[in-house]
């Protein structure tokens, strides 16, 4: 039975076989895409990907939490004093305050602790994460670990002086 083409073991790894195998495997792989894709956010979820916020209701010193893509976003109306206090760089991830805001009196940050994803609570001089004790200042920069990074700044833009759209 040395021949490659006999009844028990017919020749099959020829050109035709290779083409068919490759074409079949490609199709099978492509057929998986709808399954994978169906787990991505659906159209109605994506259509909630931007959030419009009216800032006129937030008094100076006040904070407002809005949902953006299902996540809490903190909008802090900072007083002159708070802005001045933020001139110094923070220690853990040093970033200048100006780089984190578009207008100094409005701080917009994603309210999710960069450590393990809890929502920090507003405290005296910033935020305190109740889960593991991370602290953030009034620019959303981490001042005390274990959080490794500053709070994320979401993409947003001012539609008018007191209206922003996040996302």
């Amino acid at each position, binding site marked *: 039975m040395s021949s490659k083409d006999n009844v028990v073991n*017919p020749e099959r790894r020829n050109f035709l*076989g290779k083409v*068919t195998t490759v074409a079949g495997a490609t199709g099978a792989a492509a057929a998986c895409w709808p399954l994978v894709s169906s787990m991505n956010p659906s159209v109605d979820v994506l259509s909630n990907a931007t959030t419009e916020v009216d800032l006129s209701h937030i008094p100076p010193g006040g904070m407002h939490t809005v949902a953006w893509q299902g996540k809490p976003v903190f909008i802090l109306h900072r007083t002159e004093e708070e802005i001045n206090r933020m001139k110094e760089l923070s220690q853990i991830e040093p970033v200048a305050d100006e780089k984190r805001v578009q207008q100094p009196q409005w701080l917009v940050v994603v309210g999710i602790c960069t450590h393990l994803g809890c929502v920090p609570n507003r405290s005296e001089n910033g935020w305190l994460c109740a889960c593991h004790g991370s602290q953030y200042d009034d620019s959303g920069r981490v001042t005390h670990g274990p959080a490794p990074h500053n709070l994320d700044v979401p993409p947003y833009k001012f539609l008018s002086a007191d209206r922003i759209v996040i996302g």
Partner: protein
Amino acid sequence: MNKRFLLPLLLSLFSSFALANEIELEHDPIPTDRASVLRGAEQVATVCSSCHGLKYVQYRSLLDLGIAKETVDVWRGDKPLNSAMKPQMAPDDAAAAFGVTPPDLSLMAVAREGGVHYLYSYLMGYGVGANGETTNRIFTVTKMPDVLGISAASDAKQREEISAKAKDITAFLNWAADPRAGDRRSLGIYVIIYLLIMTILLFLWKKQIWRKIDAMEKL
């Protein structure tokens, strides 16, 4: 085509039974082109939506259909883009005025036996009864007035215009019932072509592998 008709259709060739109580529907072809659907959308959004909502169709999906943002903004008023197309009249008020709550139209094109043909025949089915009252031959107990005015149409040209309008409305509601049907068909063509090629390749390969067996004496 509906499965309830498939088997009887085959069997009625050699059987003497007829389906009982079937209403004769008009089987005019319902257009599927974009222009008709867009004209229908305007009719539905400005006329039908006084009473009827489409709770599964959001204003944003009208943008995907290709309707200009400005037009959709006019139709939606102060409702957000993510809002479903709601009726202008509150359902309770409509129920008080007509005696029934006007049904939602999202799935109307597929929710009746006969589908779009039922819908078109219904819109065109108004007539004048013996006592001068408006009747509908398709859905005799309907509470909806003859909005398109087919029962009062006197000449052929008028009827033609109303028929075109009814077809546009039906075309839009047909889209609304299954907005992904377009994607479905265009993907389907590629899938079928691919599968046919695979069938041919596999057929040839099978013949090649089975060559020695096929040459043997049949059992």
